[in-house]
Every structure is written in C-alpha cells, then in structure tokens.
C-alpha cells in the first residue's frame, strides 16, 4: 500500500520546522527523543538493549516503520503510521515512550509522511 503523497512538504509543526534540533531535515540519523512534535521519520534501528528492543519492535517500531512524534518531551508520544512497506496506516497505534527508550530509537527523517495524523 503506497501511503506517501509525493510532493507534500515535510515534517515539523506544519510550517517546515526542523525535524531534529541538532541535525535538521534530511540528516541521516536522528534519535526519536530529539524529534520535535509533528516530525516524522522512518525507523532505522532500536538500539535500546535486547529485551526493550524486542518489545518496541513487537509494538510496531520495526526498522522501516514510519513514525510521527505527536508529543515531544519526557515521556513522548509516537504514532506508528506504517509498519513496514505494506502495513496499514489507518488507526495504526500510538505509543507513550520514556526518554530512556526514545533516545535509543533512531529514525531517518522523512518528508511526505502523508496520511498519518497531523499532530
């Protein structure tokens, strides 16, 4: 299922605001805890230890999943929009994440995350 809408402006709070305080849009790798509210990205890896990583992946934060940060801070809220290439975007799931976990989830900042909730 192609969920992206090409041409739509990226990330941030609706005004092209940076996805990452440190690296900005287009940067290679950003920790989820550094993504501002409204920013989206594709999960690259969950480097939070074996057990916590397995749990996060089981909750849908798998490499390739598209996520959007609905609330930044400690704890933050992340909407998992696409689980992998073909999974359902509707509804999806929202996860409240402690900073301890969010700082180990790395995402590739992404534009046109599209159909997910406009946080």
């Amino acid at each position, binding site marked *: *299922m192609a969920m992206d809408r090409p041409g739509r402006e990226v990330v941030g709070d609706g005004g092209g605001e940076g996805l990452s305080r440190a690296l900005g849009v287009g940067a290679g790798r950003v920790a989820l805890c550094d993504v501002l509210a409204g920013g989206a990205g594709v999960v690259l890896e969950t480097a939070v230890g074996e*057990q*916590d990583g*397995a*749990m*996060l*992946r*089981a*909750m*849908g934060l*798998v490499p390739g999943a598209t996520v959007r940060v*609905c*609330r930044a*801070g*400690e*704890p933050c*809220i992340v909407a*998992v929009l*696409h*689980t*992998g*290439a*073909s*999974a*359902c*975007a*509707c*509804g*999806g*799931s*929202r*996860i*409240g*994440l*402690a900073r*301890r*976990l969010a700082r180990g989830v790395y995402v590739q900042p992404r534009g046109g995350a599209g*159909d*997910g*909730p*406009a*946080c």
Partner: protein
Amino acid sequence: MTEPGTESQRAGGVADGDVPSIALVGNPNTGKTTLFNRLTGLRHKTSNFAGTTLEARTGRASVGEARLELIDLPGAYSLELEQPEARVCRDVLGGEARGVPVPDGMLVVLDATNLGRNLMLAGEGLRRRLPTVVGVNMIDLARRQGLHVDAAKLSARLGCPVVLISARTGEGVEELKGRLLEVARAGVVPTQTPPGDEVGLRAWAEEVYAFAASGGAGDERLARNTDRADMVLTHPVLGLLAFAVVMGLMFAGIFWLASFPMGWIEGIFAFANGGLREVLPAGAVRDLLTDGVLAGVGATVVFLPQIALLFFLISLLEDTGYLARAAFVADRLLRPFGLPGHSFVPLLSSHACAIPGVLATRTIPDRRERLATILVAPFMTCSARLPVYVLLIGLIVAGLSKSGAVSHPALVGGLLFVGCYALGIAAGVLSALLARRTILRGAARPMALELPSYKLPSVRGALITAYDRSLMFIKKAGTAILAVSVVLWWLGAFPHAGPTAEAQALRAQAAVVAGEDAGVLVARADRIDARHAKSESFLGRIGRAAEPVFAPIGADWQLTIGILASFAAREVFVGTMSVVIAGAEGGDDAGEQGRVRDELAGAVRADGRTLVFSRGTCWSMLVFYVLAMQCLPTLVVTAREAGGVRWAVLQFAWMSLLAYGGAMVVLWLVGGK
C-alpha cells in the same frame, strides 16, 4: 518445531463428549477481553496463573449443545519477549504451566485496525502447532476506516480458519465459536508455519498483509480528533487538570451514588438483626448470629456498592481509551517515587477501600512496581477509617474550642481531615520509594505504553467486570471478615460475667419506683453490666495484659481493647470503645449518640483523673489510625495478589511499626495530658 505442512495435520483432537479447552492469545488492546466476556458472559472465574501476579480468567462458552472451556491469556506484544505476560502465554501454550493442561486449541485475536503489527503475533502463534482459529476483531471499525480484509485470502496464507468479528456488536461471534469447536475436535493444526526469526517473520507478516488486506487510507477526521483530544489529555498541565477533574467526578459520583444502596443494605441488616433478636431466645446463639455473623457480614457488604461502582466506572474509562492517557500523565507524578503511572488508579481506588485497590494493581505490568503498589495501597484513607477520624477529630476540635485555642472549629476539623488524607498519601509514596530502593530494587520498566484509539465504552463489559470484582470481594473479604467477626465476638462475649452488685441494686431500686424512672434505672444497670462484661471478657483481659505495649502511645487498658479489636477491621474501634466506656454502641438515635460521645470525652482512666481520650492521646491515636494496618481482609487479599503470605506480613509489620513510631512521636510532641 514442526516444519510447514501442505495439508492439515491431525494433532489428536478431542472426543465428542469432552469439553475442548481453548487459549485466547492476542496483543493488548485487541478487544480480547471484550470477546472473552461476549463468549462466556458470567460463566467465568478469575484467579492467578500459578506463581505469578497475572490474572487468569477461565470460562465456558456454549456452542449449541456443546461447550468450550476458554482461557484468557494475558495480552502480549510478542510470545518471545522476556516479560511475565509472554512467559505465561508460552508456558500455557507449551503445556508447562502448573495446573493448566495443554490447550486443545488456540484463538488468536487480531485487531483489524492494526493488522500489520498484529500479524506478527499470529505468526508466532501459528508456529505453536496447536489447532488454531484466527479472529480478526474490530472489523466494523476497520470497515469504517475504509480497510477491507479478505477472510478467505487471509485463511489461505495463515493455513487456518479466519473469522471476521466484532466482539462489541457480536458480529461473527457465533461462526467463531463453531470454527473453534470444529478445529479443536478434529485436532486440525495450521497448514502454514511462518518463519521463526524476527526479520523473516516481519517479511512474512508484510506479505500476508499485502495479499489479504486493501484500502484503509485512514480516517483523517478520526486521526485529527484523536490528536486534539491527546493534545489536552496528555498535556503536562492540562492533562493533569483533566485527570483531576475526571477522577474527582468519578469519586464524587461513586460516594454519592453508593450512599443510596449502602443505606438500603444497612437497613436490611438492621431489619434482619432486629428480626433475629425477636425470633430467637436470648442467649449465646442469638448473640453469635446477631452481634457476630450479621454485624460482621453487614460491615463488609455495606462497601459493596462503592466497589461495584468503582470497577464499573474504571472499566468504562479504560474502554474509552482514556485510562491509558491518565496513566501517561500520572507517570510524571509517580515516577519519582519508583511507581509507574499505572499505580495511580489503584492508589486512588484505595481511598474507597484498599481491597479493590489491591485488585486493581493487576493492570501494572512490572512485577516489582505492582508489589510496591500493593504494599502501600492500605496507607490511603479508606472509608472504614472515616468513623474513627470523625470521633478523634471531633474530640480534638471540641478540646481546642473549649480551651479557646481556635475560633473556627469546623475549619480546623476540615483541615485535620485533609491532613489525615495527606499523611496517608505521603506515608504511602515514601514507603513505596523505600521499598523500590531496598527489597524491590531494580530498574523500572521504562514506559512503553500503547495509547489505544478513543471509542465508546462497552456497558456490558463494564457490568461483567463490576460483577466479577464484586464477587471476588464478597468471597475473599466476606469469608475472612466473617471468621474474624465471630472470633472477636467470642473474645468479647466470653467468659460470661454475672450481673454486678451495683447493677443489681439499681434494678432493685427500679422495681419499687414507677414509670419512666424505672426504665432509666434499668438502662443504667444494663450499661454497667455491659461495661463489666466487656472488661471481664477475654478481650478485656487481653486488653489489660497488653496495656504496657500500647502505653507508650498513650493508650490505657480500655483503649488497648479498642486497638486490639480493630486490628481485624478498624471500623469496629468506635463501636468497641462505646461499649467499653459507655456500655452501649450509640445506636441510631442522635441523642443517644451524643450521650455516648460525651461519655467517651469525659471517661477517665484507672487513676480517676486522667482522661482516656486526653489531648495527646487523641492526636497519637489519630496518627496511629491513619498509618496502621488494621484490616484482615486486605491482608488476605495482599497475600493472594502478591503471591505469598510474606508480603502480607511485611505490609502489616511495616505499617504497624510506622503507626506505632508516629503515634509515639506525636504523643511526645503534643504532651500526654
């Protein structure tokens, strides 16, 4: 592990007359429990999986003439995780759980609106090689979001029957039951075995999803509404405010609504008590039934409406999706004390009664955090403490206004009430912190909390939960408090002391005077005999023997009787003190209650000068009753829920120690007189 087969394989199956057992497996928030309730109705029982604090619900479902035995396994995101929920699922499915035979079949419940992720768990389930049916739940919601799931295609890829269902509306549930019975009886295992490694399983789930599901561009309006609601409800400040309002309304509603049925229950017990007294001849049997059994059971059952309402409303809130947001917000408040946001509702519930509070800790995923919450829940001011507070704060305020120390007694009384609640909360959270730093040390499970979508709650489910919890309360607390009431009654009633000379003289006097005066004299004689009987009873003797133990917190032998009696249930303190000092419980009559209160306030100790309820003693008793563990039913429930008597012993010892120490310090600060 068996490799993929091409055709259904028989795994034994179940004989026609036998009842097949089916384990329900699913991610949290898939509506698995709603489905279980839909399938079993009230025909279920709740216990714990052996050696764990996880709830095990088993129940029976009818399929025509046949029956299915259902086991509701804890919701797990993956069967392979090193978490108690996943371990229990693995143990039960593998036949390694104590007291649970290998199930004859498995029902994997998937959330249609989150099918991509849910299919991972389905894959893990299929690898178990049990006769399996997959139920795709919330199909009505998914349709509304434009998602189409093709059951036949999904069934082909999973190699087992797939039924599209809605546990909420009942759609597909009958077909599901039929399919479950079929596969369990025939012992048909799935024809597909998905890959065992995480990456392979993920690829498999994606492929299955792409093959069997389509559409689902998403309901943008729904997403926007969810965002708006979350913006407020999870906001650091607004979220807390909303939380305070929701909880405030809920508890105000509970106390207000419950007061009506509580009144009826009290009326029924008073009526039964009066009836028994009239029907039965005076004697030990009558006293046992009225003062022991009825009084004890009545004192417990009266809290039932509060408990039923509490669980009904909590269940409704949970179903709406709000409770997860509340836990998210409360996490910030409780984390500094080593407790998770999930602890908030149990601790709040404990302000009605610690028993439902301890039962409500089942929603706390981490074992250590759950144990810490159970240990400190009884510090919260429960309804049973209120009569004691009313008496002691009344005496303190009366003393203060008599000495001219305060000009607004009502305000001071109110502040003291608030202070008692605050002291209980402070003692609770600090004790939790201490426990988390010592005996329950260990890293907290960092928050990874799914916030389910908002939806209309299921009243039916909430009713079933309320019924379930109420039954547990009655069974566990009712039986324990009944036994304790009978023992207490016996200790207080035996050995029978004969009438005193003073009372005999009064009665002789009454025989020669006429009218009302005679009645007054006889009543006085009865009170003198009641006091004497209490003082000469085993309880009275124990009170005198134990007086030195409680002297450091300001108690004389009479107060010691009250304290000892209330170790089983603190609400008996006021009644016991009334009988010990005034020779009567006070009754319903306001004038009589006032007389008893005045007698309590003016009662003196053995030295004939010092008040029983001296200023210092009132303060120390108040602190003692805020902090002390005086509720046997709660200890029973703690032992069961925490998985060992040692936790109940620890709870009792710690709270008693803190209460005793606190009361001593307060007595020293205020002064003994």
